[in-house]
């Protein structure tokens, strides 16, 4: 609508930043309303997330998860497909990681990392393939099918953990611990090579580098390959893309495969990097946070990286907040909802006034 009137730089910076600011202001009002000090809360969150290498470690660990799931949603959004199924795809990714780590004896973590990444990506992609196929060939609405597949994934994983992977006699539904050889190097070990001290506690590990690498890979795929061009063209206009000889069904399926694989990769960080075993709630909503991350990052890998860092900060800061004040962790879910609301659904509410401002400047 009024999109053309906003300069590109403002579209990628001013609009999302205004949305996030609005979300923060409302959250601050909420904190104030429950009788806590918003200023003290912000201070506590910043200190908790960035005040020590311990805090940084957790912030980066969460950010790693969100980079994967954010990229997954962003790639699908580029083709105008809304993949809400990141949660389920990541759950299945976790199953892939667990099977690879448990049933194949790996001599070294590096081989295990490659194989587990493949396992996670293949399982995640397979789980996204079915909704993608049904959308492409049968016209089933991808949003509904991916939602349904989240629930089916949760049941499937529950079945696997209770009836297949759980060790004999164990009470809680989880897989046995992975062999020690599959433990991924933590960030403090990597930094230690260069003589940089870092807290040994946080689970941040080498998957962070994989995630950053994926940002580059997705950028390259989207803007430097024929497939990426086709995906973006399809997203801009389906009839035009079809007229140019791009098969909508093929692109839909490819995009969902890539999206599912990226969501699945998240499990490498959380299942292999942190818990070293598969548990029921291995994903903990990170698949959904990917939606907020992609919307805020304007579906660009660099934007996704920045937005994932912001949400990493919110998660670590929120945990500190819950620890030291009466504000529960769920405050972060509220902030996340507001970010989705303002950057996604109420985009025009933010965009139109900004467009007017630019129009006024232009008229002068």
């Amino acid at each position: 609508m009024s999109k053309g009137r906003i300069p590109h730089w403002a579209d990628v910076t001013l609009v999302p930043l205004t949305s996030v600011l609005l979300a923060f202001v409302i959250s601050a009002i909420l904190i104030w309303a429950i009788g806590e000090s918003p200023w003290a809360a912000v201070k506590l969150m910043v200190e908790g997330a960035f005040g020590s290498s311990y805090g940084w470690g957790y912030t980066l660990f969460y950010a790693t998860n969100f980079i994967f799931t954010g990229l997954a949603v962003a790639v699908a959004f580029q083709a105008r497909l809304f993949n809400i199924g990141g949660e389920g795809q990541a759950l299945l990714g976790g199953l892939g990681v667990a099977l690879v780590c448990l049933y194949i004896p790996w001599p070294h973590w590096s081989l295990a990392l490659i194989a587990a990444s493949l396992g996670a990506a293949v399982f995640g992609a397979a789980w996204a393939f079915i909704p993608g196929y049904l959308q492409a060939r049968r016209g089933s609405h991808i949003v509904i099918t991916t939602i349904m597949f989240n629930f089916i994934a949760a049941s499937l994983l529950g079945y696997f953990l209770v009836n297949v992977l759980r060790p004999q006699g164990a009470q809680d539904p989880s897989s046995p611990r992975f062999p020690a050889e599959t433990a991924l190097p933590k960030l403090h070990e990597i930094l230690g090579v260069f003589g940089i001290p870092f807290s040994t506690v946080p689970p941040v590990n080498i998957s962070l580098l994989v995630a950053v690498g994926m940002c580059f890979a997705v950028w390259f795929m989207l803007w430097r390959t024929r497939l990426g061009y086709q995906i973006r063209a399809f997203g801009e206009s389906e009839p035009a893309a079809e007229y140019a000889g791009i098969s909508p069904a093929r692109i839909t399926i490819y995009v969902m495969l890539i999206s599912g694989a990226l969501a699945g990769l998240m499990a490498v960080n959380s299942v292999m990097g942190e818990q070293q075993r598969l548990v029921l709630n291995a994903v903990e909503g990170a698949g959904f946070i990917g939606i907020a991350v992609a919307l805020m990052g304007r579906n660009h890998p660099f934007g996704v990286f920045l937005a994932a860092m912001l949400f990493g900060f919110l998660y670590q800061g929120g945990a500190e907040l819950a620890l030291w004040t009466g504000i529960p962790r769920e405050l972060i879910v509220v902030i996340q909802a507001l970010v989705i609301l303002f950057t996604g659904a109420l985009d025009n509410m933010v965009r139109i006034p900004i467009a007017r401002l630019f129009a006024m400047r232009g008229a002068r």
Partner: protein
Amino acid sequence: MDMMVLVQVLESTMRLATPLLFACLAGLISERAGVFDIGLEGKMLVAAFMAASIAFVSGNVWIGVVAAVGVSVLMSLMHGLASITFRGNQLISGVAINFLAAGITVVIAQNWFRQGGRTPSLSGNARMARIDLPFAEALRDVPVIGPIYHGILSGHALLVYVALLCVPLTWFMLFRTRFGLRLRAVGENPAAVDTAGVSVVGLRYAAVAICGVLCGLAGAYLSTGLSAGFVKDMTAGRGFIALAAMIFAKWRPWHALGAVFLFGLLEAVANRFQNIDILGVNLPVQAMQALPYILTVVILAGFVGKAIPPRAGGAAYVKEH
């Protein structure tokens, strides 16, 4: 399965199907008017919280129900603002509402009651009383009719019967009134409605508001009828099951009744038995939990009769100038 167990399972089905029925009809009316609503879950959750906390504070469940409906309608109007007025993405707005509900209920519950995101448990007048249907006691020992009437149909909270009543009401409203005709038209071809001089925006807001009322009742029943108090995330995907039932019913009220009873029955059976042997095949409880979703995907895929949503669903209406 002996008779006793069957009656118990069906009685529990009645109760479990009720919130699904309210939410399913809510989604049905909204989507018939062309507004997708995947935020049923969130609205139910906020309503459940409001109903339980206001009922606890006031000691009267019906004040809680009114509050629940109020807050649910408020959320609906937010959805309307985003998706009708600002022509935002209806699906993203629904996602936002679900998260907003999941977060804010716990934050406020913790602040009000300090019980880790739950409300104190309700008792007495703060809970919905069970109603015995007329002659239920007298008919108790009559074969066939007794177990059905006394065992299954009688002895539920008022909202169970209200939900059942909503089915013919919704059908009548949609298919026998002028308002309903316009509502359906606005979901199929808003331009035609606009040309006839009827407000598309007004109709869609009306549909969204009705959706809010029904979600409010669904949530209220959940926390004050089905359970005795609110706990974190207590809707547990029921909003999505309702959405699934709506698709399963292909956006038709009477079929919706059938769909929610089927899904309610699956839940009741899953609650009652851990694993079932059907003709020698062991069906794990997880299969029962996943079945509503699997059935919906199958229906959506059109392998067994195709589900076609209202044509203008999901798109904001832009007036021609």
